[in-house]
């Protein structure tokens, strides 16, 4: 439910991005005379029964898959652990490279696939693990088996991992006016503008695509930040990949805050998004 609201806060598409995405949608036969061009970021949410070829692209005509249709947009995988293992693992390389190369008898094509991956899952098969009511009837082994369907390397590529507690009845019925999507979107666009200025003259447009040297240049930490990062590394057992990812997220949080420097509280926020015990079977 939350993820389906995501398109309303996504930053605007540039003309070049819109053309790139439209090319892919055009080949897939998803444009028509009334809608010849994508002007909003695509949001794809395929069902978990889809095949690896439908996800990454393929078929006789080497047509684009879901990851390419989500280019410059969002790929939302609901019931994440229910997807076939080979489908999930096929996401790894495109997540790193932003493109996918498919080789079949008909030849080999490279399709662009820069997308934001959003996955949603239950903590266990019955869905109640960790709930204060204690309604979960899964054994510890069942819980571990369910969670282990998401492989370590794939989880490592997730920048933000958030466990969402169940909503209390009173909170659900309370009619408080939350911040509107339009307001959030304005903040997102402002952060994007900062990033556009930062990366002017380079091929990339946002923090997520920073190369390792760029991370070194733009994500400098102060002494307190360095200490915090070292502590997090030792405690959470982070990898070299997650080190760069952590700094990219911290940079984005600082941008949203309008801050030139990455303060230690920006870094702390980034670290806590990596610390979901439930996914490590320690909930």
């Amino acid at each position, binding site marked *: 439910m939350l993820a389906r*609201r995501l*398109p*309303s*806060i996504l930053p605007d598409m540039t*003309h070049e991005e*819109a*053309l790139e995405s*439209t*090319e*892919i949608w*055009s*080949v*897939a*036969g*998803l*444009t*028509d*005379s*009334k*809608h*010849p*061009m*994508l*002007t*909003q*970021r*695509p*949001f*794809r*949410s*395929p069902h978990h029964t889809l095949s690896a070829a439908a996800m990454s692209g393929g078929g006789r*005509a*080497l047509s*684009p898959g879901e990851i*390419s249709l989500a280019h410059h*947009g969002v790929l*939302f995988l609901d019931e994440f652990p229910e997807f076939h293992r080979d489908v999930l693992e096929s996401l790894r390389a495109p997540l790193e490279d932003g493109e996918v190369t498919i080789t079949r008898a*008909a*030849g080999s*094509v*490279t*399709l*662009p696939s820069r997308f934001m991956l959003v996955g949603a899952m239950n903590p266990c098969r019955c869905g109640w693990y960790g709930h204060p009511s204690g309604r979960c009837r899964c054994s510890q082994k069942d819980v571990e088996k369910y969670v282990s369907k998401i492989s370590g390397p794939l989880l490592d590529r997730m920048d933000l991992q958030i466990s969402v507690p169940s909503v209390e009845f009173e909170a659900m019925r309370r*009619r408080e006016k939350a911040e*509107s*999507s*339009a307001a959030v*979107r304005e903040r997102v666009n402002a952060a994007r503008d900062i990033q556009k200025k930062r990366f002017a003259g380079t091929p990339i447009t946002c923090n997520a695509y920073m190369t390792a040297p760029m991370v070194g240049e733009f994500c400098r930490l102060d002494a307190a930040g360095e200490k915090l990062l070292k502590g997090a590394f030792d405690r959470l057992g982070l990898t070299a990949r997650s080190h760069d990812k952590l700094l990219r997220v911290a940079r984005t949080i600082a941008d949203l805050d309008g801050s030139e420097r990455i303060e230690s509280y920006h870094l702390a926020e980034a670290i806590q998004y990596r610390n979901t015990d439930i996914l490590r079977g320690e909930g």
Partner: protein
Amino acid sequence: MVTTVRSLGLQGISGYEVTVECFLSGGLPAFDVVGLGDTAVKEARERVRAAIKNCGAKFPVSRITVNLAPANLKKEGTVYDLPLLLGILAGEGEIDAPDPASAFIGELSLTGALRPISGVLPMAMAAARAGVKTLYVPGANAAEATLADGLTVYGVENAPQLLRHLRGEERLAPRSAGNRQSRRTAFPISPTSWDRRTSSARWKSPPQAPTTCFSSARPVRASPCSRGVCPPSSPT
């Protein structure tokens, strides 16, 4: 005599130029298409034959050989129906050979009407790169083709209309591209995860105004949903 008509093909999501060569010679009547076409390309022969006859033209009684160059790349789909038709009619002398700076893509129905095809934007961009100045596409694809810069795009509804245009009897009006900003606002699209085939309703109503409980056709109660039951389809 060999007539050539320029057309386009798709590999992955990038287009490339295809030259449709058409040779009418003596011998037993036959109609062959070479150049690694798939089944849809082979079947184009029947569509073209019927379309030519239903346009009021005569299908030549001669040995027709069509080559889709470069002949080592696989050709797919129904893109080549239109260039095939023009190649044959030009070979027969019904029309002059098309201007070498123009390219043609489109699927034919048996009646001679043009049906939309997919992958028009990448092909139009490839055409512009290859130096094509004028691109003829099915009418339903014209808006998409205008997104490529540097092309004069004609949307063609049916083959007789195109033949009259090429003979100079009744010129078609080119589709205007407009500037970038107007293109974006003129073509709203709803990029939902739903497929066009499975949820046409979602596509037919692009989310522009905030969703209201009651349609504006009933202005009396046209107030935004206060009960929070309407799904927000646009920024709320």
